[in-house]
């Protein structure tokens, strides 16, 4: 086995259980836990962390699977999070490879943007497809982003720790 293949295998063996653990938390614990009247989203934060420390390839692949699991946890057949989180992982990974400094400020700003992107996408879909009142769903989206940010610190340190292990 070449060195590169070995490294890839190690990354898969570390990131796959991490993703599964987060998915289980997202779809069991966090569906019952509400902060500021909303359920937190932790998978987008994990994608941000992996992309920031792993680059575009890891970010993109992790985002793809995280998005699929996120759609699963939403009980929806659509692929909205699959698309959004893959894009988030890819774009943030490219930025991390080229311009972003790896650290908590970058993580926090990226996490806020990723959460707002997820919320904006949901808001747009609901407003356009269901004619939902924008003011009301914007309030829910804002609370969702805020309560998710509570978990930014542990997920940042977890991502940093995993990147060092890999």
């Amino acid at each position, binding site marked *: 086995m070449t060195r590169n293949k070995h490294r890839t295998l190690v990354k898969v063996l570390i990131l796959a259980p991490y993703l599964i653990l987060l998915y289980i938390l997202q779809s069991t614990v966090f569906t019952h836990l509400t902060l500021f009247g909303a359920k937190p989203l932790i998978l987008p934060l994990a994608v941000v962390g992996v992309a920031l420390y792993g680059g575009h390839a890891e970010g993109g692949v992790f985002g793809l699977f995280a998005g699929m699991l996120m759609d699963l946890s939403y*009980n929806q057949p659509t692929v909205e999070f699959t698309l959004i989180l893959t894009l988030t992982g890819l774009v943030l990974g490219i930025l991390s490879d080229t311009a972003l400094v790896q650290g908590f400020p970058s993580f926090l700003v990226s996490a806020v943007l990723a959460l707002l992107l997820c919320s904006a996408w949901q808001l747009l879909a609901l407003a356009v497809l269901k004619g*939902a009142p924008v003011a009301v769903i914007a309030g*829910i989206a804002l*609370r969702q982003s805020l309560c998710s940010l509570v978990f930014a610190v542990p997920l940042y340190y977890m991502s940093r720790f995993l990147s060092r292990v890999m």
Partner: protein
Amino acid sequence: MKDYITKKGIFIAAAAIVVSVAAAISVAVSGGRAGFASLLSEPFFKPVKSAMTSLVGSLEHLYDYMYRYDEIVAENNRLRGRVAELEQEYREYTEISEENERLRSLLGFAERHEDFAMEPVSVISWTASNFASSFTVSKGSNAGIALYDPVVDENGHLVGQVTSVTSGSSTVTTVIDTSSHVGALIYETGATGVISGEFELFRDGRLKFSYFSAEIPLTVGDTVVTSGSGGLYPAGLVIGTVTGISVSSSGLDPYAVVEPAADIGDSTHLFVITDFAVSE
């Protein structure tokens, strides 16, 4: 010094004799009750005795602790085990008791609706979405569950409707979801309308009853039940209770706010109505 000791000794001996004689006389006179010595000494000695007794008890306990430590540890472990067993038995008893309660309620509900075929299901997981209310249950088409089957709790209160089915599981969208619309009527007056989920009421887990005739008055406390129109739901399933009456933002359409009868967020064991007689 010798004189001093002698004088003191004589004095003390004399005092002792006087006290002894007085004590003997007082015991003889009291006829078995406590003599004056006891009465005089009690205020002083009682707390001292108590303290000493307590100290001795503590020393005995310490002695036991030191010399019977292994025995006590073994006994402690045995008792811990027994407590764990009893706690487990209590949990099982509580679970059985709760299940019994649910089945009794269901039996009453099933007896009232002999035309219903019901499939018991367990809630596996809830949606992570903040904009929807749905959950996955443990059975699917293999158990006879089909798309749009109504889902109720053990009391027959409407919880939602099956909106997606696989062979081994189903997704149930609850009545408070904004995509939910159910034909309903007010049990007390017969006023018909539509129960639906609304984003404005979603956070509080409440429903909107609208499109009803303004001529029939609505009252807080009225019971809302399924009308059976459309054939998707059987008639008469309790949806909830009117908790408030309001007017839409346009000011033209009155609506009632309804509190669901089913404990939607905390339900774990539910029943899918797989077949029922459609009322005409």
